[in-house]
């Protein structure tokens, strides 16, 4: 069959497909409760991250307990057993990038939170309470979400990664696509990973990683877009049960564009 034949045969597809395509408009919004859940997580996350950054920047000297590298290394190596990677058996796993880390439990996280504003437990409770209040999930689920967010984000905070600013791109589909941009280790290179449940693609339409294991629950919880007081969360990319990208955006209401895009920079613990 030639390409020409295909185009001709496209002219014979079902009438309903033809009409529906033209009647379609902008993508549907994700269910309200999920958006509430995400924005609650986003609000708490941004506030906590900013607070931690300020505290870390201001504190100096021996008062700040050193990061327990042993705990860190054991945490990084124990991601196979972490709750967020419990679905690893569902599919093949690819090697995690060197800058991806994870934690097994809140106890490990608490080591890092001592120097920050509030304890791990306090932060966890605060986030869980907010999630519970703003969404349609129960206490147990809220706690679970808070635990996952805490476990994934705080290592970056404690490592002192620098936030160079925020940016965003349009998030097209709640169920399937996750549009994420990031730069790593000071590089100005930008990537857009269009991400479905099996493959990771880049902006040029090239397949980057095939059969990436996607943990739907995690993606569902962390993904979405919502305006609330200038905060927009675009999601966390989780590969092999570990967060490899954290993308959070602050926006003053102006439209996003490539020129205004920045993201988190994060470094491997200990490097």
């Amino acid at each position: 069959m030639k390409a020409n034949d295909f185009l001709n045969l496209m002219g014979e597809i079902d009438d309903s497909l033809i009409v529906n395509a033209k009647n379609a408009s902008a993508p549907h919004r994700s269910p309200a409760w999920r958006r509430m859940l995400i924005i609650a997580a986003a609000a708490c996350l941004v506030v906590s991250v900013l607070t931690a950054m300020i505290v870390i920047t201001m504190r100096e000297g021996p008062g700040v307990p050193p990061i327990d590298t042993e705990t860190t290394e054991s945490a990084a190596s124990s991601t196979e057993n972490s709750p967020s990677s419990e679905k690893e058996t569902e599919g093949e796993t690819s090697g995690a990038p060197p800058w991806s880390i994870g934690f097994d439990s809140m106890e490990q996280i608490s080591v890092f939170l001592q120097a920050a504003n509030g304890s791990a437990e306090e932060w966890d409770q605060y986030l869980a309470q907010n999630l519970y209040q703003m969404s349609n999930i129960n206490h147990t689920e809220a706690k679970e979400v808070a635990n996952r967010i805490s476990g994934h984000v705080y290592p970056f905070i404690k490592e002192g990664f620098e936030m160079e600013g925020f940016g965003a791109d349009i998030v097209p589909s709640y169920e399937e696509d996750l549009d994420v941009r990031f730069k790593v280790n000071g590089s100005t290179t930008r990537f857009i990973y269009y991400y479905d449940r099996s493959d990771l693609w880049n902006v040029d339409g090239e397949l980057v990683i095939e059969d990436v294991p996607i943990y739907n629950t995690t993606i569902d919880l962390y993904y979405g877009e919502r305006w609330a007081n200038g905060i927009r969360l675009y999601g966390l990319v989780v590969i092999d049960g570990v967060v490899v990208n954290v993308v959070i955006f602050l926006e003053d209401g102006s439209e996003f564009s490539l020129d205004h895009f920045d993201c988190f920079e994060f470094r491997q613990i200990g490097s």
Partner: protein
Amino acid sequence: MDDRQIITMYFVRDEIALAETQQKYGEYVMSIAYNILDNVQDAQECLNDTLLKLWNLIPPENPKDLKAYIAKIVRNMAMDRYRDRTRQKRGSGQVAVALSEIEEIFPASNDVLSEVERRAFVAFLNQFLQTQPERERNVFILRYFYMDSVSEIAKTYKLKESHVLVILSRTRQKLKKAMEKEGYAI
């Protein structure tokens, strides 16, 4: 005037049917024709020819969905006109670009499809499209049926153009895999 009333006027050979069709679907027809022919005058001629063809086809044809029926007529007509115009060389406009995209999964081939093969493939294509997520399906159809440009599709869905390109690329790859699974030679 609703479509049933327009069709009834065709049946009773009331020429107002043509005026009503043009008023209701004139822009729709022009946009499809222009996407393919990239020329206003050719698109206008296509519109006129489409109205004439409708007059000749209805009756006995009694389309269930007049809009889709008209879309198919004008698309086929415009594609025929495009082929006549370009013949051996690649033309301009969206058809040329769409062809180059589709050639990623359909390398040059001299195979000619029989009528049975054509019908089977259309049935396969319908099923494939039905299994795609709504947005991906519609983007694919807007591109390869309506020949909308990538920028138009991006505006419709409030996406970046690069994202539309990736959606199309992914769907083409999925189509290719589905065709290989069904035993279509690629």
